């Protein structure tokens, strides 16, 4: 089964004032398929449309045209989001709450009982090494620690599909390695992952397949095993080749 399917997905935004409106195109006819149990890496320069694509798949934004199905369903329907988990770039949490409280809250939104939410929150905090700080206020946390709380939030609902936006952003090398190990652990457990990253080598190590978005278009979708040589060079070559041809 396909975990994610997008068909002719396009998105444009209207910017500017009422009297001087400007249309900016973020995505143009994106056709993408991510198979179940696959780790798919989404690469692209800044402003390529990666975050917009992810936001459509998460139901945060509606497409202008085309459709997106996640685990075979329309993700804009709340009940269809039970089996997904999302980690944004630089996650931010209410400053006056504690990691235990925020994770318990998320657990309750996943329809877990209060006790189950608390147990899973404690377990997840243990996994990311924050159990001892479970009752500290989040405003006392560093960027890396907040990222860990974000990672802990991924582990609450035993999701089938993970959306990770720059998961190692702001992490020190040790924490980044731990994050990669967590992703590999999820991969081993047969989870599907859509990874959005600028870290090309990270994508190379973790992904089965990659897609390159450029100017809102999906210009390449290929298995990682078919890429010969250095991944970074391959990425630059592909983008430049496309720009010359366009």
């Amino acid at each position: 089964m396909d975990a994610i399917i997008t068909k002719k997905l396009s998105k444009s935004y209207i910017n500017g004032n009422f009297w001087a409106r400007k249309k900016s195109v973020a995505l143009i006819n994106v056709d993408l398929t991510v198979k179940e149990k696959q780790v798919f890496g989404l690469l692209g320069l800044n402003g390529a449309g990666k975050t917009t694509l992810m936001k459509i798949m998460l139901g945060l934004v509606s497409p202008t045209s085309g459709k997106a199905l996640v685990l075979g369903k329309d993700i804009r329907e709340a009940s269809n989001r039970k089996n997904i988990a999302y980690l944004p770039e630089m996650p931010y949490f209410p400053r006056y709450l504690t990691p235990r409280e925020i994770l318990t809250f998320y657990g309750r939104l996943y329809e877990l009982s209060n006790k189950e939410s608390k147990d899973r929150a404690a377990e997840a905090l243990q996994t990311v090494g924050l159990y001892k700080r479970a009752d500290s206020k989040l405003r006392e946390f560093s960027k890396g620690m907040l990222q860990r709380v974000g990672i802990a939030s991924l582990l609450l609902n035993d999701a089938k599909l993970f959306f990770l936006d720059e998961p190692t952003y702001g992490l020190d090398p040790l924490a980044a390695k731990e994050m990669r190990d967590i992703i590999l652990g999820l991969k081993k457990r047969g989870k599907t992952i859509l990874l959005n990253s600028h870290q090309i080598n990270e994508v190379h190590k973790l992904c089965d397949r990659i897609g390159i978005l450029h100017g809102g278009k999906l210009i390449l979708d290929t298995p990682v095993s078919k890429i010969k040589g250095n991944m970074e060079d391959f990425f630059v070559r592909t983008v430049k080749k496309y720009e010359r041809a366009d």
Partner: protein
Amino acid sequence: MKERIEKILAVAGNTFKECVRHRILNVLLIFAAAMIGGSFLIRELAPGAEDRALIDTGLALTEIFGFLTVVLSLFITSYEEFEMRNIWITLTKPVSRGIFAAGKFAGICLTVTVNTLMMLSLLLLLARINSAAVNTSFIAAALGILLTLYVSAGFTMLFMLTATNLTTGTLFSVLFYLIGHLTQNLKTLIASPKTAAAVKFTASVFYYVLPDFAAFNFRDQIYLSGGVFHYPLLLKASAYGAFYALACLLIAGFAFSKKEL
């Protein structure tokens, strides 16, 4: 249905915790307590009506600080949700935007109820110290303030969730609050035989769209009816407040569900 209620309660509890722990709101409460505490000084300016001056000033301050609590609570929580994009994580969980809005409204109402009851308790204490008479009209006024604040929470929520930015939302909320204390004048205009039909129609539209806080002014109504509190009046006003807040919440939920985050 049970899951929906549980999610509303979870969002409400979370909002309440965030609000009561926030430093700005704590400072606001301390400031409100200081101002209400200082209202006994007003007594000196009203010889012969010291008790009424103390209670009236205290109640007015309670309502103003209650409204500030509503606006600041919604501003602070919405800032963290929209500007810091915390809402992206919440809304990718199986919770609809309408349920999220309802939970947030419930959390704000709970926060403002607790804050208002604390301010009213302080006022009662002051009245006791100054041996000022406290009667049914105090309780009626307290209920009126709470209804005013719930309605304010409804329209402030609507503006915060739908405005393009939080400053605009705040500005509209403050304007609605101020206008809500003047809408009774529209009723007079509508009732006047000298008013043209077109003006009457326009005034009626405005009257039904804008909140009418005079409906919650039970204290004056008790005074005008010679100290008797008509309970049907409380029911009528409560129904009006509930309807107005619910309408705001439904519009907010609908508009928020279409909003691009």
